[in-house]
């Protein structure tokens, strides 16, 4: 039973997300996306799967055969094992651990291992660089993630995910701790190697990143099932920790939980369609110089409020967290704009027109409509 649910979630995410990603991405880019296979292109993921299964599955001669085979197994441990502690309804959890949050922190580290091994074992330069980048990025963003999980444990006064959901009966934690939610969102997107943090598989420089040498069914396992399975599982975790888990009116618990997870996944796809990619040094600096100090500050202040007012700490925490969120977004936007404008000024110094004019003013700006006969 538990096994069937776990596998169904993984396969469903391998079907739902690639399709919706290509479709939504197409709409954002003013294209159609897949629309030929079946009604509205709905059968496209199945066609892709059949194609990938029947393709030849090769192992390069120079690769380390056994590690090459072991890497997907280890990578798959994360999406499958994390699902064990997610409460699907009031009574149903596959394994109701009393250290659920610590378990999530521990198991999510397997993902790094799988990707590092995949990158190393193929004996290819692209995969090696992709795997090492993934390792550096994922361990850096793991720390804000861990600190955020600790804030949830402090608020719920328990590490069991069932208790976390029970504690959110009145207010969801996203209302009390939006700062923690934003840190969890950013760090989670980085953990999942999605845009704007998709350096480990940067197509324009590293071909396919750590999965360059994987073909056929192994590519389907990595790119389809593991990556999107991770997205779903991350969505389930976020829904449980911050969005009230299985709570919701009218519908039953599992449906609400999966709905929230899919919405989180769609937010990631939205990021995918709209954000540019960061540089490696910017990425690491953002984790170590911004996210970690902020999450430690958030942790300390939340702890202080809980100790000062043990009975009604929710309101001061919420006020602090909302204020911190607004200040953070405001300052961050201001600083980033300033830096970007400075770069642009430097870039345009040698030109004969003002930096804010992107082209010479004498020429009329051609728009899309004017092109043509």
């Amino acid at each position, binding site marked *: 039973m538990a096994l069937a649910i776990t596998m169904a979630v993984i396969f469903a995410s391998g079907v739902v997300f690639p399709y919706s990603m290509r479709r939504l991405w197409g709409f954002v880019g003013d294209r159609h996306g897949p629309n030929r296979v079946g009604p509205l292109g709905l059968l496209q993921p199945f066609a892709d799967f059949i194609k990938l299964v029947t393709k030849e599955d090769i192992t390069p*001669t120079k690769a380390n055969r056994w590690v090459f085979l072991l890497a997907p197994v280890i990578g798959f441990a994360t999406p499958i094992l994390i699902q064990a502690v997610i409460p699907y309804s009031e009574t149903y959890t596959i*394994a109701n651990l009393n250290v659920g949050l610590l378990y999530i922190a521990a198991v999510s580290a397997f993902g790094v291992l799988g990707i590092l091994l995949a990158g190393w074992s193929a004996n290819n330069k692209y995969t090696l660089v992709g795997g090492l980048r993934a390792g550096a990025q994922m361990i850096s963003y793991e720390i804000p993630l861990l600190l955020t999980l600790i804030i949830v444990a402090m608020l719920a006064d328990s590490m069991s995910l069932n208790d976390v959901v029970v504690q959110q009966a009145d207010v969801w934690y996203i209302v009390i701790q939006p700062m923690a939610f934003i840190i969890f969102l950013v760090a989670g997107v980085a953990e999942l190697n999605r845009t704007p943090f998709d350096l480990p598989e940067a197509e324009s420089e590293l071909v396919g990143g750590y999965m360059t040498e994987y073909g056929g069914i192994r590519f389907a396992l990595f790119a389809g099932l593991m990556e999107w399975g991770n997205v779903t599982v991350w969505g389930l975790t976020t829904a449980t920790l911050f969005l009230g888990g299985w709570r919701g009116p009218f519908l039953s618990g599992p449906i609400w939980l999966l709905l929230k997870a899919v919405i989180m996944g769609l937010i990631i796809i939205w990021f995918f369609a709209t954000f540019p990619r960061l540089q490696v040094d910017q990425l690491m600096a953002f984790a170590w110089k911004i996210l970690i100090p902020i999450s430690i500050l958030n942790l300390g202040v939340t702890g202080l409020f809980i100790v000062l007012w043990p009975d009604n700490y929710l309101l001061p925490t919420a006020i602090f967290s909302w204020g911190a969120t607004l200040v953070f977004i405001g300052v961050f936007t201001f600083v980033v704009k300033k830096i970007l404008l400075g770069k642009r000024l430097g870039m345009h110094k040698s030109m004969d027109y003002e930096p804010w004019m992107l082209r010479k003013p004498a020429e009329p700006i051609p728009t899309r409509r004017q092109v043509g006969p």
Partner: protein
Amino acid sequence: MTPDYYVSYLSIALLGLADILFVLALIGASRLVQRRNPYPQKLTTYECGIEPFSDSWSPFAIRYYIFALLFVLFDVEAVFLYPWAVIFRDMGFTGFIEMMIFITVLLFGLFYAWIKGALEWV
């Protein structure tokens, strides 16, 4: 320790086993339906079409190894923080201050590494 406790961990172990079987079974099933025709040129390492030269497992400048060292520091901190987060209400103000001193020492370590330039692209 209720029996339920052991059943939970047993089911996690079973899921881990299922993970191994699942991946191997999918790769095996694919073996059955695919057409195999390997030849030496096909099995070379992919390097954008040119002849692959040298080995990738050679000494390589990993610019992030200092981050890995710092990560160990914060990982240990997290291991201390998790049990504290569950019981710090009972410990009261003293326990809170103690943990804050610990975190402050760690933060000084982070700032030291920052000032020394360990967080820059070296």
